[in-house]
């Protein structure tokens, strides 16, 4: 049960002093080297990007599309503008403003094991929308082909693409296993597929901005009820400025007829993405929800501060899987996404059950603790995580299991992999409240080091306030050892294949928790993320 921390490198990767580019204030600049913005237009830019894209991050391209930006910076006016752009009712605008005023009084948390330069919140765009989306597309013809092409290139299962605009009749043609997709591009939802079919089952799946307009009662009742406006600095910022995200409602005793997914794409430069997802699983319902994310390669780090709230009533079950593949920054730590995310599930109902599965390979900075409030008696929370940090990436991630109800159970399986000069921290809380009698937790927390310049840290917090609960914590730290690599290579695998094989073995329990095709993607991603980490 001891907190363990181990560092493979005594001489920490020393960072070069930043060469400041005096001409322009830069948002979220990493402390490595000032990126040059002068190549922004024309051929130079293309050349730079082509070269940059030759690396291993295959989603690093961008879409050249005309955008509508709100002015840079954050103020009450900007918030009113975002609210107006989304055609929101007054109560929503007020809710945002309340959050904003609160946020102004809050300080950015710095307790995580993360090092990054001061973020200039006034040097960000908080709203970016493709111009072509100004008029809500009514049919396939109306959706900007560039947007459709973007998702096609990302390989998002948009058979649904045909259906993005909800074209009548198109849904009948899709064979096999289907996934409904809500595609979020920068600040707006581009479209949601299979809506009509889902509606037949009573399932509501749409963008949150649409939900605010069309289903205000549900939104008003549940928004902020799991992650309160003032929960933490980043969640509060999100509450003020969130522009879009997904909304899901599964009616009582309904098994959602297909998997739902949201695909987040950050495209615009200097723009933060602040999406908000709200999932409500009514009594006895079930849904499996997938989330995927990518962003172009940029020299400048970008901010992503999302909030996900899940409400589970009696006997409901939700599986939430994330494959997070934001641009992680380059080998020297330039650029990448700063990912500050608050995800929480509230098992309000008795016997409800939530399972978080995450594969975190991207982001320069990850600050993320998907949590479970086990309020209902006999409710269950599970957290399966793979966090990979390579090169200069830093991850501080884990979970919170708060046991409030009787006989609640939780299980945590965390696999942290560090390579290059990366630092990877597991931070977890298991809390057994006095009323949570006869509850159980099992935590398994394994770290794998590749090379000798990276670090793995495990910081478990455990509070038990009753006599009948049990908490188990196991932690291991291991290295991909030379014998394993040589063994694989002597059988014909090259070094990278060998590392991927060993690492996939290490992650197996978590990969198995993912839906099938997500698991395949994740497995491939694990290999790609570790390219160049040995040798």
């Amino acid at each position: 049960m001891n907190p363990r921390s181990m560092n493979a490198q005594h001489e920490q990767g020393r960072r070069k002093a930043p060469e400041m580019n005096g001409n322009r204030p830069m948002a979220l600049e990493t402390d490595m080297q000032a990126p040059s913005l002068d190549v922004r237009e024309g051929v130079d830019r293309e050349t730079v990007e082509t070269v940059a894209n030759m690396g291993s991050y295959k989603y690093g391209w961008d879409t050249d599309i005309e955008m509508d930006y709100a002015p840079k910076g954050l103020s009450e006016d900007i918030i009113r503008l975002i609210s107006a752009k989304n055609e929101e009712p007054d109560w929503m605008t007020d809710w945002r403003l309340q959050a904003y005023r609160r946020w102004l009084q809050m300080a950015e948390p710095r307790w995580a094991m993360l090092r990054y330069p001061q973020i200039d919140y006034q040097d960000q765009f908080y709203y970016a929308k493709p111009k072509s989306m100004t008029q809500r597309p009514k049919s396939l013809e109306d959706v900007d082909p560039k947007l459709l092409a973007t998702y096609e290139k990302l390989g998002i299962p948009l058979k649904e693409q045909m259906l993005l605009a909800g074209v009548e009749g198109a849904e009948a043609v899709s064979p096999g296993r289907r996934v409904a997709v809500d595609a979020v591009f920068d600040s707006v939802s581009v479209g949601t597929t299979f809506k009509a079919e889902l509606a037949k089952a009573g399932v509501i799946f749409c963008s949150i901005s649409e939900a605010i307009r069309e289903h205000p009662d549900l939104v008003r009742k549940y928004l902020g009820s799991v992650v309160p406006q003032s929960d933490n600095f980043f969640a509060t910022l999100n509450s003020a400025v969130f522009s879009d995200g997904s909304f899901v409602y599964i009616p009582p005793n309904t098994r959602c007829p297909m998997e739902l997914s949201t695909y987040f794409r950050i495209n615009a430069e200097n723009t933060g993405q602040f999406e908000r997802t709200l999932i409500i699983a009514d009594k006895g319902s079930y849904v499996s929800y997938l989330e995927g994310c990518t962003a172009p390669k940029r020299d400048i780090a970008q901010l992503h501060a999302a909030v996900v709230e899940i409400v589970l009533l009696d006997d409901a079950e939700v599986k939430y899987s994330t494959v997070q593949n934001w641009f992680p920054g380059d080998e020297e730590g330039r650029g990448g996404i700063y990912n500050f995310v608050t995800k929480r599930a509230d098992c309000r109902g008795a016997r409800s059950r939530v399972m978080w599965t995450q594969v975190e390979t991207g982001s320069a900075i990850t600050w993320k603790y998907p949590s479970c409030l086990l309020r209902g008696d006999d409710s269950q929370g599970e957290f399966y995580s793979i966090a990979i940090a390579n090169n200069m990436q830093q991850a501080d991630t884990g979970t919170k299991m708060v046991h409030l109800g009787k006989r609640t159970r939780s299980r945590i399986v965390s696999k942290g992999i560090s390579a290059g000069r990366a630092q990877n921290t597991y931070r977890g809380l298991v809390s057994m409240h006095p009323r949570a009698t006869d509850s159980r937790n099992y935590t398994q927390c394994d770290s794998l080091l590749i090379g000798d310049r990276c670090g793995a840290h495990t910081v478990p917090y455990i509070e038990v306030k009753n006599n009948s609960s049990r908490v188990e914590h196991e932690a291991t730290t291991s290295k991909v050892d030379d014998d394993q690599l040589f063994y694989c290579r002597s059988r014909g695998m090259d070094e990278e294949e060998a590392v991927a094989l060993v690492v996939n073995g290490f992650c197996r329990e978590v990969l198995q928790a993912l839906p099938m095709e997500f698991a395949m993607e994740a497995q491939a991603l694990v290999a790609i993320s570790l390219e160049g980490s040995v040798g």
Partner: protein
Amino acid sequence: MLEIKNLHVKLEDEDKVILKGVDLTVEAGKVHAIMGPNGSGKSTLSYVLSGRDGYRVTEGSATLDGADLLAMAPEERAAAGLFLAFQYPVEIPGVGNMTFLRTAVNAQRKARGEEEVSAADFLKLVRAQAKMLNIDADMLKRPVNVGFSGGEKKRNEILQMAILAPRMCILDETDSGLDVDAMRLVADGVNALRDGKRGFLVITHYQRLLDHIKPDVVHIMADGRIVRTGGPELALEVERNGYADILAEAI
């Protein structure tokens, strides 16, 4: 086929010379055995041939069918047809034995510009070979060597050898830690692979493995050199008199 000439090897990080001029040629279809006391350099020879880090070749050469082994990465040597059955097979947690094998087969095929083997064909191939080595389906599913008994690990090495179908097989003390029955299974597996074209280099301390795998040529290695070469009767001599006589003679 395998030609080792005047091979000198030292440890990379220490000034310790281990091989002091090894000369050895294994012809196609032949089984050569290397015997010798502890610390004579037998295992080092097998590691150097398969490309393990930590050693430096200071002089000499090693070729397989004329190709310079020492210039190749371990995986290239494997694709060129070299196989080492490990004395201590390595455990890889979480990776199913079957997955490991298929990854290896396909990696080699890819390196040789061949098409990947289909899952169905592969399964057939493995099942047939596994049956011969008395390896059950459960062992194929379990993670590579994790929780395997000594005998299971060695049989698993021979299974890999059978499936990868190398040109040249090196067995590094495959008999260590085996009971008589397990040794017979392993030997049967090896004998089944003797097809008149494949070469074998069998490294062992004891004569008893050579009762089951009949060698064509026996070498005695001591202090980093081959000190004597002869027929199968040489192994029997060692069994009777130990190494002392031969070593005394060599010096």
